C-alpha cells in the first residue's frame, strides 16, 4: 500500500525529471542549460547564506500575509455570512474588490505603505483575502437550519455557538478558500518582490535573469516549485486534522448508503 502510494506520488515527477535530464544533456544553448548544470547551480546557490538572506524573508512575508488574510477573511466572512442585510449591502463591493488583480495594486500600495516589507505583505493579503472571505460567507450562510434552530432552542449562543456551530459548519468551505489562497499567496509573494525589492526569492530569480546567470535562474524556478509542493503537503496535513470529522462523516454517509 505504502509502496504503491509512493510510486503514484513520485512516479510521474521521476519520469519527467529523467526526460528533462536526457533531453537537455549536452545542450549548448545558453538559455536552456543541461539539467545537470541547473542542479549543480541549485546546490551552490540555495544551500548557503541565500537560504537565510532570500528564502527566509520570502517565506516570512508569505506566512504573515497569509495568516492576516486568513484571520481577517474568516472574521469578516462570519460577520457578513450571519447577517442577510450586511450581505446584501456588501456583496457588490466585495465582487468589485476581488476582481481587481493584486499586481496592478502594487504601485498604489507603494504610495500608501512604502517600499518595505509592509508593502509586500499587503500585496499578499490583498490577494489571499478574497477566497477565504467569500468562501466563509458561503459556508456560514449554508449552515443547516435545523442545527441553527436546535442551537437556538437550547439557548446556545456567544462564543460557544461561534466555535461549535458556525465555524465548524463552515470549516469545509473555509478550508477550500484557504487552499486557494495559499497558491495565490505563493504567486503574489514572487510578484511583490519584483517591485522595489532588495531580497527575496522572486527578486533573486529576476536578478539572475538580468545578470545572465541562467542555470541559477532555473534553479530558483525549481525551488519555487518545490516550495509549492511542500506547502501543499503541509496544508493537507493540517486539513486532515481540522476536517477529520468531516471526512469521517462523509465516509460514514457513503458507507451507509
Amino acid at each position, binding site marked *: 500500500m505504502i509502496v504503491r502510494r509512493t510510486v503514484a506520488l513520485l512516479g*510521474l*515527477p521521476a519520469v*519527467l*525529471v529523467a*526526460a*528533462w535530464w536526457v*533531453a*537537455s544533456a549536452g*545542450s549548448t*544553448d*545558453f*538559455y*536552456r542549460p543541461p539539467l545537470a548544470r541547473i542542479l549543480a547551480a541549485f546546490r551552490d546557490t540555495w544551500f548557503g547564506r541565500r537560504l537565510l538572506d532570500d528564502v527566509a524573508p520570502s517565506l516570512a512575508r508569505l506566512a504573515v500575509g497569509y495568516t492576516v488574510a486568513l484571520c481577517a477573511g474568516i472574521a469578516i466572512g462570519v460577520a457578513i455570512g450571519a447577517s442577510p442585510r450586511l450581505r446584501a449591502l456588501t456583496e457588490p463591493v466585495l465582487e468589485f474588490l476581488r476582481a481587481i488583480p493584486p499586481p496592478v495594486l502594487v*504601485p498604489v500600495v*507603494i*504610495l500608501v505603505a*512604502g*517600499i518595505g516589507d509592509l508593502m509586500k505583505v499587503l500585496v499578499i493579503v490583498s490577494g489571499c483575502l478574497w477566497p477565504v472571505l467569500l468562501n466563509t460567507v458561503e459556508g456560514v450562510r449554508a449552515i443547516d437550519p435545523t442545527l441553527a434552530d436546535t442551537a437556538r432552542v437550547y439557548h446556545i449562543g456567544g462564543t460557544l455557538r461561534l466555535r461549535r456551530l458556525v465555524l465548524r459548519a463552515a470549516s469545509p468551505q473555509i478550508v477550500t478558500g484557504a487552499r486557494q489562497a495559499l*497558491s495565490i499567496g*505563493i504567486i503574489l509573494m514572487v510578484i511583490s518582490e519584483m*517591485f*522595489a*525589492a*532588495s531580497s527575496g526569492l522572486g*527578486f533573486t530569480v529576476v*536578478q539572475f*535573469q*538580468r*545578470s*545572465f*546567470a*541562467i542555470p541559477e535562474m*532555473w534553479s530558483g*524556478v525549481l525551488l519555487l*516549485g*518545490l516550495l*509549492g*509542493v511542500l*506547502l*501543499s503537503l503541509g496544508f493537507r496535513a493540517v486539513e486532515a486534522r481540522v476536517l477529520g470529522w468531516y471526512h469521517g462523516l462523509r465516509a460514514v454517509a457513503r458507507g451507509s448508503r
Partner: protein
Amino acid sequence: MRRFAAFACLAVLAAGATACGSSGTPPAKSAPGQKDKVAASVIAIVDVAPIYLGKQKGFFDQQNIDLTLSTSQGGAAIVPAVVSGQVQIGFSNMTSLLLAASKGLPVKVVCNGVASTGVADKDYSAVLVKAGSPVHTAADLAGKTVAVNTLKNIGDTTVRASVRKAGGDPKAVRFVELAFPDMLAALQAGRVDAIWEVEPFVTAALGTGARMVAANYVDTAPNLTVATYFASVALTKANPDLVKRFVAAMNQSLQYADAHPDEVRQALGTYTKITPDVAAKLILPKWPTGINRQSVQTLADLAVGDGLMDKAPDLNALLP
C-alpha cells in the same frame, strides 16, 4: 496536488524547449535589388533618439537597409532576442553587455550608442535628493537609501563610484529597486533618501525642487560610454558587410543627432511620451561615434569590484 501538476508541466515544457530549441538564425538574404531587412530592438528612452532620427532622415535606406525598430523593457529582454536571432541589432547599457560577455554570451558591440556629457551640472543622469535633505555631497549618501532602476547594474556601480570619489564609504550605501517614473513620488514621500534618475526625469525632479548631489556618470569617467548597439557574434561573422553598412548609417545618425539637438527634441515625441515642453528643456546626452574604451574598462573594473561578476570579459573581443 495542483502545484505538483504545475511543476510537472514546467519540467515538460523545459525539456521540450531544450529538445527542439534552435537559435542563431541569420537574417534572410534578400534578393538582388531589394533592401536588407534589419530589425533592431531598443529601449524607448532619450538615448536612442539618433536611430529614430537616422531612420527618418533615410540614412539607413542609403545603406540599402530596411530598418524596423521595436521597443523593449530593457537589456535583459533585448540580449536574448539578439542572441537567438529574433532581431539583428540590440541596444543595451555597457554594464549589462559586460555581464553578458563575462557569462559567455556571444555578443559583439558594433558601434557607440550614447555617452555622458561629461559636464557635472549638465549631465542627463544625476543623483537627486529632496529639498532640505541633509545629504549635500555624494559622501553623505553613506548609510542612506538610494533608488536605482535595476540593482547590480550600471546605476548602483556608478553611484558607488561617485560616493568613493567624494570620500564616502560606498559599501554603506543601501540600494533599492524602483522604476524611473516611480522614483520621484518615493523621494517626496520620504521612502528613499536619494534617487538616481536619467532624463526626462532629472528635469522633472529638479522642477519640483529636488536637488542634485552627484553626477554619477561624470564621476565615473570623463565622457563615459553608457550604452552601445550590439549584434550576435554569429551575425558579425556571417554577414560582416551588413554590419558594416549598419554601422556606417548609425554613425551618420549619431553625428547628425549630435549636431541637430532641435530635431532630436522633436523626434522624442515620435517614440516616447515626453511632452514637447519637457523635450524642449531636458538635457540631451552626447552621441559621439567613438567608444571610449578607457571608460568601458572602468565600468568593467567597477563591476568586478562590486561583485557583479568574477572576471572582466576580454574587451578586445567584445568591442569593435
